[in-house]
């Protein structure tokens, strides 16, 4: 037993030391890809899409009210998710855009959600619009809604969902995002239930992913996590995804938005 304990002790130190400078080098990599990132391209394309008349009513989204008045973009993303009186529910950016596509442009929900997640050959409307709109909140502290009863309920539901273990692999979000200093392979795992760890994440999503040259949104992020949790697929813009998003954004609120980010 003594030999084993000594060996285990040595092991615990060795990987720790390696991890430290690996962490430093990966942070350098992240800084460098943020300096020279093609994310701007998505913002530009998103702007032209925001202004492009579409749908049976042949109207652009420029009159869409993202919570700060019709067409107001400055800081709008930083105040989402929030409660919207006209829809009587809590909405994040993509959910609100879908609302405007159906109510302003007269598009059917089915058509507007046919392709919500794109690929590197063809990004989706939601991805391009998210890039442009999020960019208009640069420098504005993240401040999602938190006073309305439905906002509080969304946060509470999101918090429970974050810790709720289910599915064939018994995972919850906290299974991976629950303990400080943990990694999946070389991927650092922020503890998203801890404000200090959640703030830099919330301030840099949505983001451009260098690994597949795609621009990714929060709805995709939550969708893809449930995929890796071996769960069935969450409905796009559902109450469930908005609740998880509300919990994450509220936990990480207060940090000035500095996205869209560039990630692995």
């Amino acid at each position: 037993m003594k030999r084993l304990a000594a060996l285990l002790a040595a092991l615990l130190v060795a990987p720790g030391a390696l991890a430290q400078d690996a962490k430093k080098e990966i942070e350098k990599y992240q800084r460098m890809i943020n300096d020279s990132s093609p994310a701007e391209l998505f913002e530009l394309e998103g702007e032209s899409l925001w202004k492009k008349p579409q749908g049976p009513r042949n109207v652009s989204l420029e009159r869409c009210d993202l919570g700060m008045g019709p067409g107001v973009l400055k800081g709008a993303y930083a105040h989402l998710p929030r409660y919207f009186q006209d829809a009587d529910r809590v909405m994040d950016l993509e959910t609100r855009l879908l609302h405007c596509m159906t109510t302003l442009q007269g598009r059917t929900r089915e058509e507007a959600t046919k392709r919500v997640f794109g690929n590197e050959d063809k990004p989706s409307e939601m991805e391009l619009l998210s890039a442009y709109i999020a960019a208009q909140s640069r420098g504005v502290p993240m401040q999602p809604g938190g006073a309305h009863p439905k906002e509080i309920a969304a946060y509470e539901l999101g918090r429970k969902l974050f810790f709720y273990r289910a599915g064939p692999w018994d995972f919850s979000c906290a299974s991976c995002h629950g303990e400080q200093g943990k990694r999946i392979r070389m991927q650092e795992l922020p503890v998203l239930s801890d404000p200090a760890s959640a703030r830099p994440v919330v301030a840099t999503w949505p983001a451009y992913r260098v690994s597949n040259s795609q621009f990714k949104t929060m709805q995709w992020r939550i969708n893809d996590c449930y995929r890796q949790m071996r769960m069935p697929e969450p409905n796009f813009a559902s109450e469930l995804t908005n609740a998880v998003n509300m919990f994450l954004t509220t936990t990480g609120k207060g940090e000035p938005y500095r996205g869209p980010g560039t990630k692995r």
Partner: protein
Amino acid sequence: MADPMKIRTTVGAEFTEVRVLMVHPMETGQRKDSSGNLVPIHFIQEMSVKLNGRSVLEGQISQAVSRNPVFSFRLKGAKAGDKLEIAWLDNRGERNRSETAIA
């Protein structure tokens, strides 16, 4: 492929930094698209940077340059208002050219 390039210039004391973002898939010919077929090789081969009409930098690049290439260069003796021209040619003979005044 005539998407505009995004050029940004910053005039400094010793040199002017030029950052250019080009729209190009830079396919290696090894990637499979969403329906599983190999996407044919397609990448920028040659590029040039001209200042007031005179070539100051020539580049030969390959499919090993990342998708939507981002380059940074440094030019000496450039001043605000000078004409900066960046052009590229890819392996299919497609061309693109963007011009801007140094800010």
